[in-house]
């Protein structure tokens, strides 16, 4: 049975994604780390769908659709941000800072 190891792997993968978000300043790389976290959750769904039926896989399908939409809108925002101040460094994004 691969259920336990799969869930452990998804835990590690999610933590790697969180660490990536915290240590990088490049918006695109931070965005890629968010995709990594989504993938870790997908792995959980797939692993559990083996024991509890197909609904988990249907959910992964929906997560992928939402991730695709998110990537398209997010990358458009990054493009607009780069056009605004010629940088995609997260330190430059401080317009709302008090």
């Amino acid at each position: 049975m691969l259920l336990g190891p799969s869930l452990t792997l998804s835990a590690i993968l999610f933590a790697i994604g969180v660490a990536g978000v915290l240590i990088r300043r490049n918006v695109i790389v931070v965005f890629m780390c968010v995709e990594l976290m989504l993938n870790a959750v997908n792995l959980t769904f797939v692993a559990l769908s083996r024991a509890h039926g197909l609904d988990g896989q249907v959910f992964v399908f929906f997560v992928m659709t939402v991730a695709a939409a998110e990537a398209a809108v997010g990358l458009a925002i990054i493009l607009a941000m780069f056009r605004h101040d010629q940088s995609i460094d997260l330190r430059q994004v401080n317009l709302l800072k008090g």
Partner: protein
Amino acid sequence: MELPVFYVLAAAIVVSALLCITRRNPISAAMWLVATMLALGFLFVTLGAEFIGIIQVLVYAGAIMVLFLFVIMLLSLRGAPSDMRRWPAWVLALALAGTLTLQLLALGRYSPERLAIEYSGAPTAEPDSVFHGAAMLQSQVASHGVVGAMAQPLFSTYLIPFELTSILLLAAIVGAVVLAKRRL
């Protein structure tokens, strides 16, 4: 046979994910992310989700990552200084990721057997007799095939969410075009 394949793929996933978050060049980070997603797709096939595995390779490793690479190349960030944060962020990241791993490792202790016993209230219970999902999955795959078994719930139980995702995708397309437009 399953277990060695699983461990090889798991090692590949963890190593390429670590390389992805530590490479300085955004392009190599993206390529390592592609490697992670590809290995994850193989892992889904190993776990019996063939359709999801193929979709993972097509949509994630294919479409979404090509979009990322396009944007990275469009922005031409060559010669940009390293985007790694300084050491306080590393300490914070290690502490937070470590705590999160420890908490999420509790997931690894999950077993259908224990849940079946708690759910049915009987002192001993077989998970297959309490939860019928696994048996139903096998019978549906046997009668409809891998893709057909997935289509059945998608177009009956989950029809409304399915239609909603199409609206979401439409909104995302319009939003992306509007945001990326130079002048409105």
